[in-house]
């Protein structure tokens, strides 16, 4: 009989959790919980810490940071879409120096594990960000947001080109602390995501994060012009979940030994479970946080309940389980 542990949720209700080992191993780093926040949906952790204990998460994945302070794009910056949203923030942020001295320091003092997301406009900018973070004890891992336009190549998005992706990943890997895994975050807006995944892994990526948003446009029927100030935006939320699960599925099938962090429309523990079964070793909760600020903890509890209900003793046993041979029973 499964042992149950009673916990109090952020909404103050008591639930019973089955005894499942929720720890996960990501390229040499062990996290006690596979659920994290998704970059750009949790700031630098401070706001969500009002709603639940952020140190209980696998990690806080910070909003992508760049070298210099950035104002971001004009408003409107978002549009609600069916089961999702389109956003065009433009990577507003304080720049790496203020981030390290204020936000990263706060996260470290708070005791949270931190995956720092970095973004740049050139391969050199990514390298300098990695160098700045190299000696920080607060960094659990680095997630490289390569869905940025390369200003040195006509604004072509790094993540859409295997050569540009591998150049960035190689530079970040070479300049990061040896014990800190580097995850490349892939864009679904490519013809062959497995080819990009392989290029990143060959360039030294310790793991892959999938997926970033999908490019979209919303036209305002009143003004009869694009709704967003930035015209195009990134589509996120449950609307993109099957696309994300497909990406994780394909890449895990091709590269079964490469750790994957799955994200894209996770709203419930069952959604997170899909990603785990498809091959993700951890998950990030993003847009759903806007709907429910305590969602990361809720998803974590729901996932644990579901794993217990399916008789998994540990999360690790479920990773990629959907890929088992046809004749292997559940």
């Amino acid at each position, binding site marked *: 009989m499964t042992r149950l542990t009673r916990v109090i949720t952020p909404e103050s209700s008591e639930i019973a959790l089955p005894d499942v080992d929720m720890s996960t191993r990501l390229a040499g780093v062990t996290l006690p919980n596979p659920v994290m926040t998704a970059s750009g949906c949790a700031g630098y952790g401070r*706001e969500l810490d*009002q709603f639940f204990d952020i140190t209980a998460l696998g990690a806080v994945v910070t909003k992508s940071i760049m070298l210099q*302070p950035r104002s971001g794009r*004009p*408003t409107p910056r978002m549009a609600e879409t069916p089961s999702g*949203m389109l956003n065009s923030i433009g990577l507003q942020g304080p720049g790496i120096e203020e981030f390290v001295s204020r936000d990263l320091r706060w996260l470290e003092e708070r005791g949270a594990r931190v995956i720092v997301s970095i973004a740049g406009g050139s391969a050199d900018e990514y390298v300098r960000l990695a160098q700045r973070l190299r000696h920080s004890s607060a960094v659990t891992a680095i997630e490289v947001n390569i869905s940025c336009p390369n200003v040195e190549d006509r604004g072509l998005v790094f993540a859409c080109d295997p050569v540009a992706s591998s150049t960035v990943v190689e530079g970040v890997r070479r300049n990061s602390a040896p014990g800190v895994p580097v995850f490349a975050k892939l864009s679904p807006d490519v013809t062959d995501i497995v080819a990009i995944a392989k290029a990143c892994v060959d360039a030294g990526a310790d793991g892959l994060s999938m997926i970033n948003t999908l490019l979209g446009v919303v036209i305002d029927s009143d003004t009869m012009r694009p709704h967003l100030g930035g015209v195009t935006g990134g589509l996120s939320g449950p609307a993109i979940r099957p696309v994300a699960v497909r990406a994780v599925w394909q890449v895990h099938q091709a590269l079964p030994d490469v750790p994957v962090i799955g994200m894209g429309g996770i709203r419930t523990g069952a959604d997170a479970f899909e990603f785990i079964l498809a091959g993700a070793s951890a998950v990030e909760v993003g847009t759903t946080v806007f709907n*429910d*600020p305590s969602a990361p903890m809720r998803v974590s509890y729901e996932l644990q309940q579901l794993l217990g209900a399916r008789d998994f003793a540990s999360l690790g046993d479920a990773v990629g389980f959907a890929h088992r041979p046809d004749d292997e029973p559940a």
Partner: protein
Amino acid sequence: MTPVQVRGEVLSIRRVGQYHQLTIVAPGVAEQVRPGHFVAIAVGGETGAQLLRRAFSVYRTQDRGVYGGTVDIVFAEHGAGTRWLSHVRQHDTVDVVGPLGKPFALPKEPVTCTMVGGGYGSAPLFTLAEQLRERGCRVDFVLGAATEGRLFGVLEAKRMSQSVAVTTEDGSLGDKGRVTDVLPGLLERTGADVVYACGPMGMLAAVADVAARLGAHSQCAVEEAMACGIGVCMTCVLPVVGDDGVTRMVRSCIDGPVFRGDRVRWNDVGTVPADTWGAPVSEGGH
């Protein structure tokens, strides 16, 4: 103040003119609310297709009661989200996060105050007026809307103020025109020290301008589209000048919704002015 997330029971929902007034049992939220705070409400249900919270300024609160603290909001049916909210019924559950934002700053001295509300934007001004009156302030109201049916709280304003001026764009009640047609005369007559305003952005810009010209301090609660209300989505930004004279794109949910009227770059809302902290350096730059 620490915002909390509660699943609150709907105590009542009723029509007020062309608006809806919703009372939700929200213990932990109600007790902390000060005038100008807002709440963010999830719409569409737990499995619905609308993910973004809707932000509403708090109209009234009741600290204690048989049911615990309650929060009242007033809203118009603008789109699918507010239409869903207009269909909630007594005993339904609504997910509320609050209180959020920075409230109106209250004067330490008993000064003369003018409240300016556009449409149901007037909602947070009534508890504010009560608190100002308790501090010995003189309070006058200007309430404006497109039509009589879109005014909110005219009788209530009359009960708690020295005077109430009403404007409607179609002339169906009060003076035909806009709040800023009557505001300069009122400010001159009363010698108002502070103007508190809440309503559409265009109105706020005009009110802040009038206040500045007549030497009054203004406190404006802005309406910007928000996805989360708690400071993580970065969608509700506008250009605001800081104490150091530098313009930044600040979040209206965290640094607002109440701003000093002379600090918001009203004419630049919807843009990133070139001198903003971190603005793109040049064409093709980053």
